[in-house]
């Protein structure tokens, strides 16, 4: 017999079934056991647990708000729905304000990225790919937690594509500009990295490293740390651009429908403001998720920096060394440890670790060999965050009766893998995904994230055009009424 429950227009308002409540409790219990068990073994696992619990909060918030950056771009162009773009801008504003406070307190872990066209190109490839996968990098993690096997395929293909892409040579070496090769060679990198063989090494050492990074608060010449952080980094680089985008989104995608719904033909300025506010608050779930994500992402920097000071480290590699774990460290004895919300690099490490176990050598490049290392998943604190994003989402999905193990069809699986590979390539060219290369940058005074967003939007637009054409072609053949 079908168990039916009534829903609200905001989604599911059903009471949690007893079985799902128990499953949700089991998910939390698992992470509590991992967290407490490891800390009892060695107190330094507290550093791992910090990543783990922030990941859990992110996963729960993402699932609650159906918070997926892919849909921000895709749904805007495909179905004219601005709710996710609005949610992201709310999160950007909140994250930037909390980040500013964290920066003033001297607890920021953020490092700006260089400004360059690579962000545009990487963002465009990433944006094009994510239209086909059903989710961005974080969206695919949280949808994996809802039981979607196609989302898991996206995560896996994105991870392995990155791991292989940063090590690939052969024919790609032939397209590397000679100036990159010469510049990379002049850096006198360790011989074991062979930086003049392999295009990604030359892209990094011969191109990206030569670019300058910008922090708006510094560039505007403020002398006061508070003015730098709150006016330069937050207001100028995040809040004002977010408000401009929100006004543009209202004018292009929301205003017409709102005026029609409210039977307004000559709206006053006050009515326009009410309409704009109606758009901002249209999806409370998304707005609440944006608020929680923004605040939590800022707080995570504060917590990670505090723990780094507590343990006397500047990178988790030092912590692992002190714990007697040296396998998988980079030549600098570091591992990937951003200290804030980040997705993609840690998953590339996980894939590289699996490939290394299968005999594929991936540590003779800058990305793994010199910068990020290939620690085992058990010794990779940032990868713990990715696992717990899945866990947090699974917890919330059980509470909302929304967990469903869903196997993909061949068509969906093909889209997931192809899109995931493109997202993996795009994220490595763009130095991150929608989180690391956009969300974490624009909120910390680094304008490179807006370049990534511009590329991601352009790629998403092209992707939607292609996808619409594909669906219409397919349905004209298959559906009785066509489309």
């Amino acid at each position, binding site marked *: 017999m079908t168990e039916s429950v009534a829903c609200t227009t905001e989604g599911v308002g059903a009471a949690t079934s007893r079985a799902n409540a128990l499953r949700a409790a089991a998910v939390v219990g698992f992470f509590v056991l991992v967290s407490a068990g490891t800390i009892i073994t060695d107190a330094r696992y507290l550093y791992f647990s910090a990543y783990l619990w922030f990941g859990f909060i992110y996963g729960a918030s993402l699932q609650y708000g159906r918070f997926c950056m892919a849909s921000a771009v895709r*749904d805007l162009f495909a*179905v004219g729905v601005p709710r996710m773009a609005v949610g992201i801008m709310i999160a950007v504003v909140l994250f930037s304000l909390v980040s500013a406070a964290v920066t003033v307190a001297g607890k920021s872990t953020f490092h700006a990225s260089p400004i360059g066209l690579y962000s545009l190109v990487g963002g465009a490839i990433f944006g094009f790919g994510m239209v086909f996968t059903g989710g961005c990098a974080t969206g695919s993690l949280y949808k994996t937690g809802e039981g979607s096997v196609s989302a898991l395929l996206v995560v896996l293909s994105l991870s392995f594509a990155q791991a292989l892409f940063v090590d690939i040579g052969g024919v790609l070496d032939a397209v590397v500009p000679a100036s990159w090769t010469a510049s990379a060679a002049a850096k006198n990198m360790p011989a074991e990295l062979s930086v003049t063989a392999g295009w990604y090494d030359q892209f990094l050492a011969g191109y990206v490293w030569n670019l300058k990074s910008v922090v708006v608060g510094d560039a505007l010449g403020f002398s006061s740390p508070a003015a730098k952080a709150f006016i330069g980094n937050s207001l100028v680089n995040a809040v004002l651009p977010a408000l401009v985008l929100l006004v543009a989104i209202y004018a292009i995608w929301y205003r017409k429908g709102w005026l029609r719904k409210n039977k307004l033909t000559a709206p006053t300025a006050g009515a326009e403001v009410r309409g704009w506010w109606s758009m901002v608050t249209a999806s409370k779930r998304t707005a609440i998720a944006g608020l929680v994500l923004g605040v939590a992402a800022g707080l995570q920097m504060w917590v990670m920096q505090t723990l780094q000071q507590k343990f006397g480290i500047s990178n988790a590699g030092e912590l692992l060394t002190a714990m007697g774990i040296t396998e998988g460290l980079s030549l600098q004895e570091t591992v990937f440890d951003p200290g804030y919300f980040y997705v993609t690099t840690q998953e590339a490490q996980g894939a590289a670790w699996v490939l290394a176990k299968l005999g594929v050598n991936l540590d003779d490049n800058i990305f793994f060999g010199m910068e990020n290392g290939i620690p085992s998943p058990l010794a990779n604190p940032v990868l713990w965050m990715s696992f717990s994003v899945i866990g947090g989402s699974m917890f919330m999905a059980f509470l909302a009766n929304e967990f*469903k193990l869903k196997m993909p069809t061949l068509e*969906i699986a093909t889209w997931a893998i192809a899109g995931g590979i493109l997202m993996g390539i795009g994220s490595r060219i763009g130095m991150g995904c929608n989180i690391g290369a956009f969300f974490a940058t624009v909120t910390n005074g680094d304008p490179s994230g807006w370049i990534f967003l511009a590329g991601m939007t352009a790629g998403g637009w092209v992707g939607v055009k292609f996808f619409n054409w594909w669906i219409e072609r397919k349905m004209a053949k298959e559906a009785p009424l066509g489309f």
Partner: protein
Amino acid sequence: MAAKFEKVSDGKYQLDVQGYVCPHPQIYTKKALEKLASGDTLDLVFDNPSSGESISAMCATEGNDIVSQVQDAGKAMRWTIRKG
């Protein structure tokens, strides 16, 4: 598997997009609603929770009414949408 879009009776249509993930359900729904006349209803069956938020927002923006929403626990969502 393919999406099923059928006419059930006069003014009443059904779209079944179970098994599809984003962005398929919302795009199929938009295209199906474009086929309907004002006052027609669409019975929509889908099982991708995040599509629900987008479809709900799309209906609000375009002036279509979501007449009923039912969820089979852990299974499918069944919505009836009346075109405005």
